[in-house]
């Protein structure tokens, strides 16, 4: 079973596909769950504490906005743990303010820097695209080996 980072990290389709073909999707829900199930100080809604931007310094410099560093405290460890990645490039749903947008750019940059198998896709726009989309993901995931 291979840990596959998915981008957008909240994607239902990618999360399902990775699990369907026997691998482990690394999505933002996993990182959020870890935080909201850990006792500490109340920091609603996501239990992101002032500690997170400090942890984010590992991936982004100190002059980078705290919003980016805080988000990287969630995604950075998952990118490091990932053994493969699937990236959807035209994911308009991953829009956002400076924090989200820059974090997304940094996530894609780090994934491109990392020497791991990577699949680059766009969302399907018709049924034939859908067939190609699913076939590409299946080929990629079965090619990783180690399915459960």
């Amino acid at each position, binding site marked *: 079973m291979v840990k596959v980072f998915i981008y*957008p990290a*909240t*994607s*239902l*389709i990618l*999360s*399902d*596909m990775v*699990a369907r073909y026997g691998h482990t*999707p690394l*999505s*933002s*829900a*996993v*990182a*959020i*769950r870890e*935080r*909201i*199930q*850990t*006792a*500490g*100080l*109340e*920091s*609603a*809604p*996501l*239990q992101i504490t002032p500690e997170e931007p400090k942890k984010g310094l590992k991936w982004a410099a100190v002059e980078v906005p705290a919003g980016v560093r805080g988000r990287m405290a969630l995604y950075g460890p998952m990118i490091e743990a990932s053994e493969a990645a699937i990236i959807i*490039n*035209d994911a*308009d*749903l*991953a829009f956002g303010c400076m924090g989200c947008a820059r974090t997304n750019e940094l996530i894609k940059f780090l994934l491109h820097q990392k020497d791991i198998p990577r699949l*680059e*896709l*766009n*969302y*399907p*726009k*018709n*049924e034939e*695209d*859908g*067939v*190609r*989309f*699913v*076939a*590409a993901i*299946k*080929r990629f995931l079965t090619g990783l080996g180690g399915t459960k």
Partner: protein
Amino acid sequence: MTAYTPVHVGTVTKYVVVESFDFTPADLGIRAYEISKGVMIKETCFGLVINGKEEEVDRIIAELRKLDPEHIFVKDRGFPPGDARRCRANLGGARPGYNGMEYEMTVIPYVSHGLEELNIRDENTIPEPENPLEHKALDIARLRKLIDAQES
């Protein structure tokens, strides 16, 4: 700052999204209740939210998937069902993060079609999708169409 005591520690929460002509979220809910043991199930407009021990949640999801494998999609969720920090009953309006799922629901029929096709076709015979990182030159047929549209 106040102390934070987490609830449902050691559990997982998963969304089961159904986009099917044959099954509604209510059908899935009834089936899930029939086979569940010690999990929390919430029926929503798009499917179910199931919270419980990982093995039990995975077992229920594996059973639910058998109903319509190409039209049932599953993903993890960080918060348990009905959590006041996320539930729209407390916040009003759409749940934060719903826009992403709402967009993907428009694409899911194509993905379902792809999954159905792969049951009857070999994935190695299907051509690669276009590479999004490739620089695309203007297609000559499209250029011709644009010129024709300008002239008429």
